[in-house]
């Protein structure tokens, strides 16, 4: 579904490569998480996956990027964005600002494409239902809380029906309640068959929602694996990504020989409860 071969990129007016010799393969219908320390180039990679590099930002891109069967560099921007959608960090900037109600805001992209009115209405209702924002349709997009605004921002991309959706830290501006709301939506999206790529550093939530996690460090995707194994990898510390307290606690317990040396380190609360509970029961036995 997404294939990067030997991709390198430098922004215009700079001589250093933000990303170099990068390879990536993402299957259709999967949820992929990409993690990396601050400044590792996550936003740059998100823009490459969605065609804004090189079409908008310019700069020097080499290697090939194929998304949904389209070679991005050869396609036009209009063509690229019909295959892959991008949800940017700030919902304030994702919202067009040109519409005075959420209903019309959601339809903005469809109006641009010239979709007939009846079909637009159906698609707006559908996507609002999917994200649980039907009650907000007649409100002003600017009168919403941060979490609600983020849901509208995500809905405004889902309605475009691109087979691939890239989300660049969609919860960075949200409080814990808003963050939960957004992650809950991801489960619904997975069911609708979209290929999701999420750039995120909330490891606990990533463990719960991503199938595979890739690590971005030193200008490359240097490791990947199933989310639990990858996020609990001891090297996460040296890559500057860190770990959850669950991983840290289990790792510490393992060092003190309170957990068996071969135990698989937990990342989420469910994993941790299982690990420690089985340890407790084995102790009790």
């Amino acid at each position, binding site marked *: 579904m997404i294939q990067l071969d030997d991709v390198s990129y430098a922004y215009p007016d700079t001589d250093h490569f933000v990303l170099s010799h990068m390879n990536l393969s993402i299957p259709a219908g999967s949820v992929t998480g990409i993690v990396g320390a601050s400044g590792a180039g996550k936003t740059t990679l998100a823009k490459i996956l969605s065609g804004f590099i090189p079409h908008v930002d310019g700069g*020097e*891109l080499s290697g090939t990027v194929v998304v949904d069967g389209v070679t991005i560099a050869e396609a036009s921007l209009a063509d690229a964005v019909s295959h892959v959608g991008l949800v940017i960090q700030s919902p304030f900037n994702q919202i067009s600002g040109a519409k005075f109600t959420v209903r019309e805001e959601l339809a903005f992209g469809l109006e641009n494409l010239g979709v007939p009115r009846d079909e637009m209405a159906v698609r707006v209702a559908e996507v609002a239902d999917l994200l649980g924002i039907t009650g907000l349709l007649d409100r002003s997009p600017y009168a919403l809380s941060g979490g609600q605004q983020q849901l509208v921002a995500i809905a405004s991309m889902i309605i475009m029906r691109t087979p691939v959706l890239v989300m660049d830290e969609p919860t960075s501006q949200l409080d814990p309640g808003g963050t939960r709301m957004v992650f809950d939506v991801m489960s619904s999206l997975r069911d609708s068959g979209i290929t999701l790529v999420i750039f995120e550093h909330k490891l606990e939530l990533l463990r719960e929602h991503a199938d595979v996690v890739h690590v971005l460090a030193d200008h490359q995707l240097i490791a990947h694996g199933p989310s639990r194994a990858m996020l609990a990898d001891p090297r996460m510390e040296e890559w500057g990504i860190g770990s959850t307290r669950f991983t840290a606690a289990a790792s510490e317990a393992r060092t003190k020989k309170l957990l068996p040396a071969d135990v698989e380190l937990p990342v989420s609360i469910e994993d941790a409860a299982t690990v420690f509970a089985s340890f407790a029961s084995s102790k009790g036995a």
Partner: protein
Amino acid sequence: MSSTAATPADSKKVRNRIFIAVGTIIIIATYLYLVVGQPTDIAQSSFSQSGLIAIAGYVVGAILLAIGAIHRLPTATVAMVPVAIALNIVVGQIVSVIGLPVYLDSIGTVLVSALAGPAAGVVTGILTNVIWGLTLSPIALPYAVVQVIIGVMAGYAARLGMFRLFYLAPVAGAITGIVCAIVSAPISAFVFGGATGGGTGAIVGAFQAMGQSLLGATTLQGLLSDPLDKAISFTIVVLILAALPSRFRQRFPFVRQYNVFGRKAPALQHQTAAPAAPAASAVPAADVTDATPDN
């Protein structure tokens, strides 16, 4: 923006140029008719159509210019214009909070012109006054042409390198201010009878009492305030732009094409952009949107 030939858009480009040319001619003709062609005794009576001609000529001219200009703007510039307009309006308010004796209500227009060129300045200028009309007072609408002129002149000042050195900017601003004063005088005179505000109205009265005609008085009044205000506005813009990171400034194709801020040799940009993929520079992206049929 015109380096690559986009054949399907050629007819649109010709149409846009016609809009711009006709708009410019109407504005100039309006001014000349009102100032040169009018017998003075008619200009001094309210029983004339000078007010109608002033409003109609300037507004129609400004609208045609804006229609011709907006088609040239890529999405990135279109997204920038609302910010610039908001800057015009909000800075005007900050200035009144701090208590400065000037208006500084065109900083956004000058800024956009310096970063994205005269076409962007024209659109920012006219729509600033439309927004003023929608939010504060319709009195602003007849003056739209003044902001349009600021946009055009600031854009060409940028192309000529007036923003490269901080002491050239106030000169460009003062010249712009003189043109603004001259062009806006007929509106102040024939539409508002010189009464656009307390202070300015008193000055117009003083000049009339000294024997000036109404148009002469409004022109002189404008020349007292506009060049100073625009010189300060241009200076503030050049200072802000100097404080911003060069990476931010160099992102604008207009800035790169005309080397607006000097120093950075343009060859350097070409070196980094040239070997990239065919669509790597912002130029083709601009042409894609340029080809958009808008009606």
